[in-house]
């Protein structure tokens, strides 16, 4: 459910960042008030715990494995407000350092998984468990239901976010610019797979872990009253945002009339006044669409009569392609010459492998970051800023040519940073882009992208707009993933985290990120050792029910250890003079080459933007 860069348009991404800002401020104030100085280690270790939950593979019926997001569990353990921070930090580390989830999509991902999921889950848990005693089955069931509903709420939202994209962002010819599927495809797809598969995994993990903790360490579950006293100023800010957010959604709609972004001329501006009510009207229909009867007005009003059938068809096709993608990927990853052959049902082996891969990868990343290359020699702050601007250009451009040029630039940079091109391609094409390529295929055809036919595959017509839509979507994803990977590969991770100070992120969060990063490794080692111990005692051939219990018990145990660790780390910090407001060392130094690079990058970005504007590439 981690949305990558390139799926959501800039307006949507921006709106979610804008929404998250006051939420983060409110959450950190509330947590600070209730935890005082303890919040720093608690948030960090909570975040490391959230990060690691996903490494616990759970055996599921049918002999496969899955993992939980764990956000509802974290909310039950830490309370929903602390969960907001802990999960956001975990998501930020995943996006920045491990390429899991986009950087521009971080706001949306946090909203889905760090706000909606924990809050919905937490209140469902409270509602069902009521005042039931600690060891009652009612609490266990409540946790399971909460996990199921929580993840499905988040998935539904992600589906809506995807589904809004073709409506919000498309060219005059109806060519989608971001995620090419409307609500009728995206929502059932996201909701479907979570209702059918991932929701159950989440439910099992949440229920069993809560069960063990209620029994073994009930004092470690969050019992306080959830503070809801948000400062008035924040409410006002939140209110303004709520009022403004539809405007943010309409804006790209108004702009869409022209070709390239920022290109609207005087007459279009003149038309703006008359346009707004029309835009609002469309939006009005949109809000009712997903829920009652799916009578969503097609985004351009073209070929409406065929659309329903086409949507269903493309939904099935999409699902089939996703399954195919996962299957192919699984095949590729478990090729015997690359890894020891492992039975699919071996969740123990998978968890060990996950942990080992993580550690191996990090050692490798560290090695690349210390090679003498162009990007490695730059100041991390300046590098982060320029990469961010390149990603923004990638997000805004509509031109396949611009995307192609930036992508070539990425490859050149990789070459000069002593990253083998083969390795770089493998690293940046695997998973997200590969997956996106398959997702883009249905968008080629006329039922998704009506327009001038170019070729036909059996009864299906490939259209000109379809090729452009699929191409731009895929190009955007692969280019932004490449940029993010370049940044995280050529920068030592701790430096990248510290560079965030430059973006105005408070010292406390930078400290929390650092501690999170530190303890992720400790936890990953614990995961690895735990599963080795399981293997040495019981092997991996166990019934999935037993396996689920083993995994849940180990997550519960990890939390018990995390909690103890948190107390000790807090003491270790206090012992060295920590009183709640951390100070960290700043040792960045900019040199002339940094400024040269900044200038060069700025020129390239401006040139590309200008070229697109002039030539309408």
């Amino acid at each position, binding site marked *: 459910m981690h949305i990558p860069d390139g799926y959501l348009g800039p307006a949507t991404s921006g709106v979610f960042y804008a929404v998250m800002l006051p939420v983060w401020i409110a959450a950190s104030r509330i947590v600070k008030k209730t935890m005082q100085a303890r919040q720093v280690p608690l948030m960090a270790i909570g975040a490391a715990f959230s990060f690691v939950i996903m490494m616990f593979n759970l055996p599921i019926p049918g002999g496969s494995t899955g993992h939980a997001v764990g956000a509802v569990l974290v909310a039950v353990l830490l309370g929903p407000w602390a969960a907001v921070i802990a999960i956001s930090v975990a998501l930020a580390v995943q996006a920045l350092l491990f390429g899991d989830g986009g950087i521009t999509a971080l706001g949306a991902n946090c909203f889905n998984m760090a706000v909606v999921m924990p809050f919905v889950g937490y209140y469902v848990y409270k509602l069902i468990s009521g005042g039931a005693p600690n060891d009652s089955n009612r609490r266990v069931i409540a946790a399971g239901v909460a996990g199921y509903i929580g993840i499905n709420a988040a998935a539904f939202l992600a589906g809506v976010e995807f589904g809004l994209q073709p409506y919000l962002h498309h060219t005059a010819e109806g060519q989608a610019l971001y995620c090419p599927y409307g609500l009728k495809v995206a929502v059932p797809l996201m909701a479907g797979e979570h209702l059918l598969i991932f929701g159950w995994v989440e439910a099992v993990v949440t229920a069993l872990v809560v069960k063990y903790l209620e029994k073994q360490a009930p004092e470690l579950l969050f019992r306080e009253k959830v503070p809801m006293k948000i400062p008035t100023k924040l409410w006002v800010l939140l209110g303004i945002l709520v009022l403004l957010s539809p405007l943010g959604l309409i804006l790209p709609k108004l702009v869409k009339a022209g070709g390239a972004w920022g290109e609207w001329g005087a007459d279009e501006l003149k038309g703006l006044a008359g346009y707004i009510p029309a835009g609002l009207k469309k939006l009005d229909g949109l809000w009712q669409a997903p829920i009652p009867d799916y009578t969503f007005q097609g985004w351009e009003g073209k070929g409406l009569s065929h659309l329903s059938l086409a949507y269903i068809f493309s939904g099935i096709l999409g699902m089939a392609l996703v399954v195919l993608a996962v299957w192919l990927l699984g095949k590729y990853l478990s090729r015997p010459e690359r890894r020891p052959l492992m039975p699919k049902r071996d969740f123990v082996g998978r968890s060990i492998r996950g942990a080992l891969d993580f550690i191996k990868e990090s050692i490798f990343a560290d090695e690349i970051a210390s090679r003498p290359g162009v990007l490695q020699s730059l100041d991390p702050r300046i590098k982060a800023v320029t990469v961010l601007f390149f990603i923004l250009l990638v997000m805004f451009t509509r031109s396949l040519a611009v995307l192609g040029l930036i992508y070539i630039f990425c490859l050149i940079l990789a070459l000069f940073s002593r990253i083998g091109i083969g390795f770089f391609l493998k690293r940046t094409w695997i998973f997200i882009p590969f997956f996106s390529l398959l997702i883009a295929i249905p968008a080629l055809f006329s039922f998704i992208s009506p327009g001038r036919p170019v070729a036909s595959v059996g009864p299906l017509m490939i259209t000109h707009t379809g090729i452009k839509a699929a191409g731009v979507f895929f190009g955007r994803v692969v280019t932004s993933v490449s940029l993010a990977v370049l940044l995280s590969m050529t920068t030592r991770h701790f430096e990248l985290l510290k560079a965030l100070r430059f973006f105005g992120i408070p010292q406390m969060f930078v400290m929390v990120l650092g501690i999170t990063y530190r303890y992720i490794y*400790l936890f990953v080692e614990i995961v690895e050792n735990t599963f080795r111990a399981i293997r040495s005692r019981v092997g991996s051939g166990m019934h999935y029910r037993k396996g689920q219990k083993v995994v849940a018990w180990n997550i519960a145990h990890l939390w018990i250890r995390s909690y103890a660790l948190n107390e000790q780390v807090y003491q270790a910090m206090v012992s060295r*003079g920590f009183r709640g407001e951390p100070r960290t060392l700043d040792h960045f130094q900019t040199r002339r080459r940094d400024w040269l690079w900044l200038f060069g990058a700025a020129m390239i970005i401006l040139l590309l933007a200008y070229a697109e504007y002039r030539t309408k590439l």
Partner: protein
Amino acid sequence: MTGQKEPAPVLFECRDVHYSYQGRFPALNGVGLTITAGERVALVGANGSGKSTFLHLLDALIFPQRGTLAYIGKELTEKSFLDAEFSLRFRRKIGLIFQNPDVQLFCPTVREDIAFGPLQLGMEEKTVKARLELLAETLQIGPLLDRSPHQLSLGEKRKVAFATILVIEPDVLLLDEPTAGLDPKTSTKLIGMLAEASHSGKTIVTATHDLHIIEDIADKVYVFGQDKKLAGAGTPAEILGDTALLQANNLIHIHPHHTRDHKVMKA
């Protein structure tokens, strides 16, 4: 005590200190002892005899639930640490090295970890950097500075943990099982560092159940019993000679190899 120095001022004075975790698990049942400035003290006892808890009390991370603990005449209470000024002065003077270096080293890099203490204690960044360089040289941890603690061996972790405290230049070093899990060579090196610190006049309190090292690190030994009270006190020679006391407190076991072990230690 060896008695070669003039009477030093009393640093810590504890009387009948009690502490229990969550009100249920007693850790200390009335401990009283005095530590003077410049003294080298070893706290020995089996696992769970309350040594770590006692060190945490001395570092004012927890406070006695009964009895009193005073530092240079001032009683240490939760309230006294609300005073930022006092807290700062105390933390600058006392440094605790935790038993588990994974607890002690919480920053993403060794460099940041060493800088953490002095920065929180209000030291200038320039001074911090200068001290860091000097310390890295003397402890020979220069190549480790930009590594992450999880990449270090246990010996390296202990060395770095030591550096995170030495950089504060405290007067009192509290060490919790500093040699646990270390090979003999690394262990000897660490003891050498402690001897150096002691020469410069620092007070050193070490909790350990490694009887081999106490002659090297202490002038005075306190034995913590299973009843979580002091079971005995004396010079290292006195305590090591008292086989009955050591046996009663699970510090040695009756086993043929032990006598041999003991001889090696004496030699």
